[in-house]
């Protein structure tokens, strides 16, 4: 004797509004993922059968991708810690981006090196550094490298060396 609810049961993968093909964000095997979206929320992420790399399988981290996206402790607003402050304060995104741009320009001016001691051109700043990239997209890394190089900020590194 089953209840109506039981008789109506269906998988939320079947009722999703759309399924989007993606790639696992954790390690470099590059397992295929299917992202199921319902009401503009990610309701399930599972392996993509079609992927010849992973054939639908995922490791525990890949299987936890939905929780990565919908993590209970995920931060979704900008936080700012002023010099010597004891705690965070909120800041709107516009202001924060603008402040970072100002600081970028200022640090670049402060620490610009035109030439080395032998007079050879350096055209760079050693006052700005960047770290990251191994979890980013190629397109993102490309823009970062392009911007940093054009700005003369050469100290850009990522996990590949860590």
């Amino acid at each position, binding site marked *: 004797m089953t209840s109506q609810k039981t008789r109506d049961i269906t998988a939320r993968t079947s009722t999703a509004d759309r399924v989007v093909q993606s790639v696992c964000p954790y390690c470099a095997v590059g397992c295929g993922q299917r992202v199921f979206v319902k009401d503009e929320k990610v309701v399930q992420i599972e392996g993509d059968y079609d992927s010849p790399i992973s054939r639908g399988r995922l490791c525990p981290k890949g299987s936890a991708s939905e929780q990565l996206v919908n993590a209970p*402790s995920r*931060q979704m607003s900008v936080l700012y810690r002023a010099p010597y402050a004891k705690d965070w304060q909120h*800041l709107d995104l516009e202001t924060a981006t603008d402040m970072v741009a100002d600081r970028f320009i200022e640090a670049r001016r402060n620490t610009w090196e035109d030439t080395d001691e032998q007079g050879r051109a350096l055209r*760079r700043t050693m006052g700005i550094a960047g770290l990251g990239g191994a979890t980013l*997209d190629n397109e993102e890394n*490309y823009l970062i490298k392009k911007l940093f190089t054009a700005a003369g900020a050469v100290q850009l590194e990522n996990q590949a060396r860590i």
Partner: protein
Amino acid sequence: MANADCIVIQGSNMAECHPVGYQWVAEAKARGAKVIHVDPRFTRTSAVASKHVPIRAGSDIVLLGALINYVLSKDLWFKDYVLAYTNAATVVGEDFRDTEDLDGLFSGYDPETGQYDLSSWAYEDKSAGKGGDGGSEHGSDTSSRAAGDQYGSGGPAMDGEFVQDLTLEHPRTVFQILKRHYSRYTPEMVHEACGIPVEDFDYVARAITENSGRERTTCFAYAVGWTHHTVGAQYIRTAAILQLLLGNVGRPGGGIMALRGHASIQGSTDIPTLFNLLPGYLPMPKAEMGSLDEYLKEVFSPDGKGFWANADAYTVSLLKAWWGDAATEDSEWAYQYMPRINGPHGTYQTVMRMLDDEVEGYFVFGQNPAIGSAHGKLQRLGMSHLKWLVVRDFNLIETATWWKDGPEIATGELKTEDIGTEVFFLPGATHVEKAGSFTQTQRLLQWRHQAVRPPGDCQSELKFFFELGKRIRAKLADSTDERDRPLQDLTWDYPLDEHDEPDPEAVLAEINGCHLTGPEAGTPLSSYTQMRADGSTAGGCWIYTGVYADGVNHAADRRPGQEQGPVASEWGWSWPANRRILYNRASADLEGKPWSERKKYVWWDEEQKRWTGDDVPDFPVDLAPGTVPDRDARGVAALAGDDPFIMQSDGKGWLYVPKGMVDGPLPTHYEPQESPVSNPLYGQQQNPTRVVFPREDNLSAPSAGTRGSDVYPYVFTTYRLTEHHTAGGMSRWLPYLSELQPEMFCEVSPELAAERGLEPYGWATIISPRSAIEAKVLVTDRVKPLKVGGHTVHQIGLPYHWGVGQDAVVSGDAVNDLVGVTLDPNVQIQESKVGSCTIVPGRRPQGAELLTLVSDYQSRAGLTPETGNQKLTGSDPVSGEGTKEEN
């Protein structure tokens, strides 16, 4: 890998770190392949391997060298392959001296600089009749120390013609040098240095040699267990030599597979966020490369063979992509807009500079250096010297919060109210909230489509950095300062979607490149062979050219795997030119026939007069076997029909590296920076060219036999667990993963537990010369004490995922606090896989007493910044000098 007959997993815990990749190993094993796991610990990989061989951390080159010796001395090498496709027959110049002659040093060592002059390693030049040069100018140049990959994916330029002896009998052939170099790497030496019993060595040696040759192939897989050493790059070289000798490169089920830890870590070296590289492994300009011509001369030799000879086209196309119309022939294609490097500016050097207050601002995106980088304390202290810090992540990782809850706050070394660093935490978008491509470990680009919009303030890096660039450019729009010209002239106008997000496909199209002039102006390039050095093409990363051929995003190709053959070339796009196995010309013999039916992959089709097979041939498609190039030909045209290694400047697989590696043409065993064992092979204890940082805050433990080495008698080795991701930023905040591995622990053998009175699942404190951490104790037979050189070496396993903070679901002490900073000279990667420590029962002290504990042990061992940091330890350090004078 599924095609391999024997798989050696060494320096990687593949089943734990790449479970899904491991399915191919499991499949191979189910088909009867032998799987051998060489690792200090018995891990989940060992549990499903055919055999586990425990090894002392940091002694892998002895094992691999002994396997080379086994193959050579038992005459088990694949003769046709080696003669045809490697540089075995090439004769090395007479000035070369091996480590056998100089007790652990090669010729050319300069004790003043701690570096090699590479000139004596060169091949014998036909025309000169003696040691060819071409290396000397590199060798003497300090900034070439930056990295081996300075020279792109294919190694440095080689000029001239070299003497060969196909009988291999000339004593200075690479083959004979190799034989002699590894002659003392015997099974007994393996036992002595690695703690591997002779029977186990025999097992491995038989397994790989019986499973190599025409009919069978053996595959090696490694990960950071090999790279995280002061001789890391040479670990991989050793395996490469072995694989070349066995004929296992460029063939199905062969090769050396790098197992990388991050979704796009391959991509982030292809399109590098690295100080020393430009996209496509073009080197970053150095101070002495004042003009584009000088730059290009350094990058490639126009007389060399292969595809690197076109580096001028790749470089100009890159400059055109970045500076568009401002890149003209007259302006040297805007070469002068490029900043120059004049030394290693790696992340560890940057941290040292932070400590010296020379760095104002630091962007950290998707990384957690406070936990994940070696010597966590230096990282955090470094950040406390910054003016501003931008952290972009999903969660409040320790790198964002060290100023209020880091370990240094607890010890009193830092006070929140005294830290002047401004910290911006900017939330990032997850992989489903943005579109873009990842490049996985086998060079395959796969596009991710956007599923949902990022919530709240979350932004993709693409959006953030595009926006940042826009603002910087706007603020500098009116500047007349020459130094701002590169920013003003930068091409920075990507189409936006309805949410003002830059279109990632447009960026991919720029990376792919397009024709700028002629009838095809504006159409995407379909291959890097179309790139020109005359400004008629643009392209941001030549090796990725073709991914956007015909205006189609091939990274997004998704023909289901089940509808395709085993190579599945219509899923994603792999560089270069969608090839799945590099150098696959080597899967066929000299005549272009497959070495065997069982292992056929790419072959010469006599009727169609072209290369064909399961994969895209990694070779000029119509270059017939047996073709002999013109003497004067250069570049691709200079390739012979039997030069499968098309990216190497001589088209051969390199057993011996005359240029490109700064710490030796052949891999040689050196002990780690910290080791309880004396180098059993040479008087030279450690890699003489390793990069050291002798500082009060970066002390090293004394090596075996020196004063105080008994204070830190145990070896620790670090690793990852399946359930977590590196420094935990993407796993310790997830309850489902945190509950599976909730607490920091250490793994010790029952013998060590008994020796130190450690209680199972009780607490222990592990003390290194840098810091002390606490961990729960897992007493297990999976860690075995090894008999090395007559005494017992205890190893302690430490997973490095945890960190001290308040925001994560689970936290714990960070292993990287124990690790010091000493780097591999080729690639500037730190030695975090092995170090010296001691262990005591119980929890560690809190607050300032922690510092007291650490300094107690330091003074007991008599540590000074010089300890362990002498580069030369050989019996006769002058001999290196002497050789140099002979030159």
